[in-house]
C-alpha cells in the first residue's frame, strides 16, 4: 500500500474516530489563532485541572453507554462522596487518606445499590439512576447539614492542585516531567510497533512504513511539546498522573479483557450474548459498581480542587460526561464507543469552554455552542452509519 492510499485509508476506514481527532485539532488551532494565551503553559495546565473530573466520569460512563445503559446520578454521587470525605477530614479532623477511603467506600456502595436494581431487579438504568440523582443529592444535603464544609488543606488539597516539580532538578524546566512524558512516548511507540508487527504476522494490511514513522513522530512531537509546556509552568499535575493511569487501565480492560469484550457484546445484542453464555446480569452489575467507584474518584478530585464540599457540587456533571461519550463516538443504541474517544470528546468540551472563557464569551453563549456541538457530533455519527449501510 503506498503512502497516499494509506492516508486515504486511515481517513475513510474509521471516519468517525479520525473525524473526532481532526475536529479536536481544528478547535485547538482556532482558539490558538484567536487568543495567543490559549496555548500558554499556565492555560494548558488549567485545562487539565479544570476538566479532569469530567474525564474520569466519562471513562466509567462510556462503559455504561456501550452496554446500552445510561447513568444520570454521577453528579450527585460526586457531591455525596466529596461531602462524606469533607465530614471525615474537615469536621472530624481525621487524616486525608481516611477521607479518600471513606469516599471510595461510599462510591462502591452507591454502585452496588444501583447495580442491584439494574441487573437483578431489571429496572432500566435510566430510571434507577434518575432516582439515584435525587436520592444521592438529598443524602448530600443531609450529610452536609445544608452547609458547605471547608477547607481541606494539606495533602488532600494537593490531590487536585499539587504538582510534582523539581524531583530531578532542571533549569527553568522540570526534568522529571519530561522524563515521564518521554517514557510515555516510548511506551506508545513500542505498543504501536508491536501491534503493527502483529498485523503483519497475520497478513493484514498496514499503513506504509514512512507513514507509520511520520505518524509516530508527529504524535511524539505534540506530546513532548505539551510535556515541555507543563514542565516550564508548574510541573507535572498529580491529577494528570491519576488520569493517565485510569485511561491506560480502562483502555486495557475495555479492549483486551474478557469482561470488556462482554460489555460490548451485551450492548451489541443482549439476547445473543445471553445465549452465548455471557452472564449479562453480572456485566450490568459490575459496570454500575465501576461507575460508582469512578464517580467517587471524581468526587475526591473535585472536592480537593474546590478545597471543600458544597451541597450543590457536581450539578450537571452527568450531562458533561454523557456528552463527552457521544461526541467521542459512542453510539446511542449501545455496543459502540471507546475510552479514547470519550477522552477526546471530553477534551473537545474542555477546550471549547476554556477557549470561550478566555475570549470572554458570555456563559449563555457557551451553553448554546456546546449544545450545538453535541447535536452535530451525533448527527455526523448517524449520517456516517447511513452512508455505511448504503455502501454495503
Amino acid at each position: 500500500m503506498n503512502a497516499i492510499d494509506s492516508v486515504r485509508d486511515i481517513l475513510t476506514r474509521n471516519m468517525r474516530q479520525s473525524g473526532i481527532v481532526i475536529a479536536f485539532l481544528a478547535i485547538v488551532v482556532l482558539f490558538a489563532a484567536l487568543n495567543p494565551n490559549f496555548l500558554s503553559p499556565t492555560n494548558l495546565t488549567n485545562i487539565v485541572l479544570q476538566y479532569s473530573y469530567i474525564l474520569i466520569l466519562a471513562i466509567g460512563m462510556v462503559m455504561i453507554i456501550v452496554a446500552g445503559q445510561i447513568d444520570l446520578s454521577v453528579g450527585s454521587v460526586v457531591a455525596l462522596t466529596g461531602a462524606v470525605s469533607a465530614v471525615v477530614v474537615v469536621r472530624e479532623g481525621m487524616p486525608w487518606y481516611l477521607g479518600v477511603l471513606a469516599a471510595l467506600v461510599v462510591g462502591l456502595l452507591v454502585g452496588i445499590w444501583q447495580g442491584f436494581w439494574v441487573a437483578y431487579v431489571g429496572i432500566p438504568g435510566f430510571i434507577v439512576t434518575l432516582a439515584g440523582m435525587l436520592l444521592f443529592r438529598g443524602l448530600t444535603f443531609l450529610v452536609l447539614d445544608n452547609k458547605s464544609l471547608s477547607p481541606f488543606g494539606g495533602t488532600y488539597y494537593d490531590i487536585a492542585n499539587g504538582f510534582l516539580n523539581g524531583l530531578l532538578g532542571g533549569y527553568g524546566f522540570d526534568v522529571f516531567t519530561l522524563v515521564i512524558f518521554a517514557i510515555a512516548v516510548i511506551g506508545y511507540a513500542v505498543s504501536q510497533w508491536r501491534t503493527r508487527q502483529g498485523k503483519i504476522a497475520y497478513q493484514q494490511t498496514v499503513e506504509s512504513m514512512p507513514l507509520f514513522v511520520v505518524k509516530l513522530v508527529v504524535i511524539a512531537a505534540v506530546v513532548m511539546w505539551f510535556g515541555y509546556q507543563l514542565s516550564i509552568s508548574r510541573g507535572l499535575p498529580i491529577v494528570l498522573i491519576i488520569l493517565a493511569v485510569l485511561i491506560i487501565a480502562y483502555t486495557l480492560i475495555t479492549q483486551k479483557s474478557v469482561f470488556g469484550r462482554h460489555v460490548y457484546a451485551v450492548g451489541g445484542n443482549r439476547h445473543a450474548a445471553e445465549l452465548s453464555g455471557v452472564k449479562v446480569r453480572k456485566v450490568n452489575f459490575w459496570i454500575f459498581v465501576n461507575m460508582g467507584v469512578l464517580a467517587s474518584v471524581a468526587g475526591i478530585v473535585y472536592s480537593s480542587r474546590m478545597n471543600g464540599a458544597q451541597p450543590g457540587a457536581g450539578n450537571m456533571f452527568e450531562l458533561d460526561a454523557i456528552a463527552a461519550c457521544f461526541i467521542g463516538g459512542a453510539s446511542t443504541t449501545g455496543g459502540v464507543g471507546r475510552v479514547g474517544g470519550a477522552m477526546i470528546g471530553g477534551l473537545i468540551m474542555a477546550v471549547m469552554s476554556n477557549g470561550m472563557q478566555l475570549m470572554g464569551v458570555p456563559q449563555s453563549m457557551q451553553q448554546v455552542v456546546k449544545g450545538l456541538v453535541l447535536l452535530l457530533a451525533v448527527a455526523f455519527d448517524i449520517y456516517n452509519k447511513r452512508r455505511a449501510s448504503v455502501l454495503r
Partner: protein
Amino acid sequence: MRGRTPLLALRQVSKYFGAVEALVDVDLEVHPYEVVALVGDNGAGKSTLAQVVAGVLTPSSGQVEIDGEPVTISSPSAANQLGVASVFQDLAVCENLDVTANVFLGQELRGRGGLLRDGEMETETRTLLEHLTVRIPSVRTPLRNLSAGQRQAVAIARTLIGQPRIVVLDEPTAALSVAQTAEVLTHIQRLRELGLGVILISHNLNDVRAVSDRIEVLRHGRNNGSFPATAAHEEILAAITGAA
C-alpha cells in the same frame, strides 16, 4: 445406525406453558455423522424442542440423554459444557463485534489476568472457517459489514468452539438468498463429515431433503412420523399438515 447408543436422545419429553401443550411425549434420537431434520408447521413445537436441547427451556417432564446418560441442561452454558451448541434464528450474533469475537463469545481464551488471547483466537477462527469452507474478507471484520449468509456462516462456525458433538440449527436458512442458502447447506454437510450429530430445523422441505439423513415430523407438539430423506415430498407434506 439403529441399536447403537445415540449421541442425544429425548425420551417422552413434554413442555407446557400453563395450559398450552408445546411438546407432548416427544421422542428423538441423534447419532454421530447424522443430520436429523425437524419439520412441522408453525407452532408445531420445533423451536421449543430446539430450546430444550439448547438449555434455554427446561422440559416439564421426560428425559434428555447424552451418550445414554440422563442429563439436565439448565442453561446455554451448561449445554456448551455437555457438548451441545446451538444457532438461533436471527439472534445468533453481535453485529458490533468482529468475526473472531463472535466466534469465541462466551468462551474466550483467557491469558494472564483475564486478558484475551487475541492472536490464538484469530488463528483458530481462521482454521475453523477454512474447515467450513467459509469465505470472509478478514476475521477482524465487524459482523455488520458482512452479508446475511456470511453472518449465518459465522454463527455456524461458533458452534464448533469447545469441540461440541451436537449442533442445533434453528431455521439457519430463513431470510437467506438462494446462493447463500446453498452455501449454508454445504456448511451443514461439513458438520456431518466432522462427525457431529446435527439437528436441523427448517420450513423448507427442499433444503431439508438436500442435506438430512432422516426427517422427523412434529405436529401439535407430538411426533407425527419419521421418514428417510428419500421419502416422497407428498408423503412428508401429508404428515406435516395431518392430511394423511
